[in-house]
């Protein structure tokens, strides 16, 4: 049953990934991308990482897709049709490279013998079962699966505290820098009293003149 479900999800995921890459309409591509992110979240649930799935939906579907939509709206006609991506000369080599990469990765996955004999990627059909929802402490992996939010918090505040703090710095830098980069020079001269930069006034010519 789980296998069938996996195949369905993977099929939807691959289809939406492909349509993201191939669709000429950028908004459609972004919608497919959101669908792809959603299927990845579903795969995380199949892997018993609901916490990560929720994060994935929250950040990717809720924020990244929206950001991409805004980017498309700001750089393109409203209908989002990508006029430049006609049949490009790089299409055939691109697809060939993609297929080669997939072949190499597939070969690598099935040729992997494992550092220890009992752990080989190609032959690992079962994961160790973990009882869900029980309150008594078990192995670290079990407590991680059952209460991932807590374990993630502990890890981020102990072992990975530097990575965590650095991620905060990274987000700050991205925020500051993206604002600095995308912000318009014209506003420099204009007063900036209000938080929302005033929209550029439309040329008055095509306004109905009362």
């Amino acid at each position: 049953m789980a296998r069938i479900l996996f195949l369905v999800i993977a099929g939807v995921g691959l289809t939406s990934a492909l349509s993201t890459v191939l669709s000429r309409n950028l908004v459609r591509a972004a919608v497919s991308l959101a669908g792809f992110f959603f299927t990845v979240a579903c795969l995380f649930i199949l892997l018993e990482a609901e916490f990560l799935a929720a994060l994935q939906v929250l950040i990717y579907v809720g924020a990244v897709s929206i950001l991409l939509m805004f980017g498309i709206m700001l750089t393109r006609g409203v209908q989002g049709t990508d006029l430049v991506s006609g049949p490009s000369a790089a299409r055939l080599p691109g697809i060939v490279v993609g297929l080669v990469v997939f072949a190499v990765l597939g070969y690598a996955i099935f040729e992997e013998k494992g550092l220890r004999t009992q752990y080989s990627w190609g032959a690992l059909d079962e994961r160790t079962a973990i009882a869900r929802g029980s309150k008594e402490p078990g192995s670290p992996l079990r407590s991680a699966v059952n209460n991932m939010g807590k374990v993630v918090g502990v890890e981020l505040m102990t072992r990975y505290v530097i990575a965590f703090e650095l991620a905060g710095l990274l987000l700050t830098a991205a925020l500051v820098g993206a604002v600095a980069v995308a912000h318009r020079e014209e506003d420099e001269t204009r007063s900036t009293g209000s938080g929302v930069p005033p929209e550029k006034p439309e040329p008055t010519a095509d306004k109905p003149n009362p």
Partner: protein
Amino acid sequence: MPTVGPSTLDFRDFFFVAPEMLLAVWGLVVLLLDLWLARRLDPAARRLWVGRVALAGTGLAFAVALAVGLVPLMARAYPEDAGSWLSKSTLDYLFDTDPSLFSGTLAGDLQVGAFDLLYIVLLGLIVGLSRAWSFTEEWGEFLALLFWATVGMMLLSAAEELITLFVALETMTICLYLATALEKTRRRSAEAGLKYFIYGSVSSALFLFGLSYVYGLTGTTHLSAIRRLLVEAQQSGLTANAAGATAVLLILAGFGFKIAAVPFHQWAPDAYEGAPAPAAAWIATGSKIASLIAFMKVFANALEPWASPDSNVLRPGWIGIVAVVAAVTMTYGNLAALRQRNFKRMLAYSSIAHGGYLLVGVIAVGLAADVSRAAGAVLFYLVVYAFANLGAFAAAAWLARDKESDQIDDLNGLGRKQPLLAICITLLMLSLIGIPPLGGFFGKLYVFMEALDERTASRGSISLVWLVGLALLNSVVSAFYYVRVLRAMFLREPAGKPMAAADRLIALPILLSTAVVVGAGLTPDLLMGVMQAAAAPMLTTPIVVHKLTAPTPVGPPAPKKPTPAFQYSADQMKKMGQMATGGAGPPGGGGPAPKAKAGTKSATPKSKAQAPASKKAENRP
């Protein structure tokens, strides 16, 4: 390299990242002061004012980094005095020469301390350079991004664990993408930023996929644990290990982008040309140093067992791949540089070529018997290269300030107008070529000697002679384009608008770089001694299996590594102290400093001594 500990937080560890914390906070301070107080000033005054605040921050960071480096050294040098005002446990903590910070995710060894200082000095010079002329409106943002990129670099060269390493790498590069695009009056800056961004993000995606395979193969992300697992599994080379080979290729692609090795170099010329000179200088120096150190840690240390079976260059293993990449990189970089008329673009291709030489050094580290010496040679090369390039970019900034252009022809006649600085630039160019009495020569010499070392050669059935020969040939080729700069400065008549005299901000980086390059050329042993001492803890893995069976996500703080630090004699302590402070210790070539460390590769009984033996046994027919 430090050992892996359980997940606990020891607040004393923050002492070692004090410079990073200071820089991160100071970036915010600069940004806020720029937005609040400097808003009303006119652009030039604002630039100078904000720049002064930033310079004060680098000064402060330098002091803090010096203190962080010195306090443990002093405590080790004078344990009795330190014991009177420090508790026993603090003293023990400080006595660990290879401390395992944050459960082993960061190193706090001599290499980290020394390179922190180096980054801060370079950052100070670059901030000064940014003050020299007006190329952007967003001063606070630009300087803050430079500061945060520096934090990323410092943590990247300190990282001992792949997650921290990945985040540090991204912090560094994202700040640099943005700094590249901030010269908003020019189209090419935006273009450079976007190209750098796209290539960089693709490369980090490749890198990450490689990391995920490494994690899948070993189940851990700590470099020392990965190495231990590979050694235990008797992995030698990548024969019949397709997954490992894929991971190596992907990670190599990621690092290759960052250090602009050839199949992944396309962004570099555009980014260097389009970026404002200070940002380009920071990409060429800081980012390259940090990426190369991380590259060395990941490849020559964690993945060392995958280097190559029997140390044979052309057998499956990453050495063969890196050798080919190195050969192509230096050849292509030098040949392409010959065509360039733009000074910054020429520097970009020359920096690609230097990346190739450095990769030869990394191969030598992967093969060497005495790892600390080989790695010390690479670090030496990096330091000299960084200063020479910084001086060259200061000249580019000078051009950009006075001529708003960076063609080599714009330097025409500089030798008559500004003889002192022209001579300094000459020395820097000669050092980049590798002319004997200068630092660049010794950098190349050490690196190539390590590659040719007979012990290295005897371990492999095919030596690296061909690679070194190619590198020497390339050095000759490189002379042509560097000499073009000299010819412009001394043999051509000045044309067009003459360049105004360089002020302190431009002269200082050039003079200081020249001093370092010449100094490293006159007394190479001194710098080499420090670098070898720094390299010793960086690449040595004490393979002590840390028993972690109890499920203790939060437990009592684990006892530190049991290595008794007190067994060092006071004499050795003193030597180490002098070595790190750059004092007048008697280093002498190989120097006693590496030997003062109990855990060099050859000296650790469990690690390296065992690995070759098992390799030999495995490869016997």
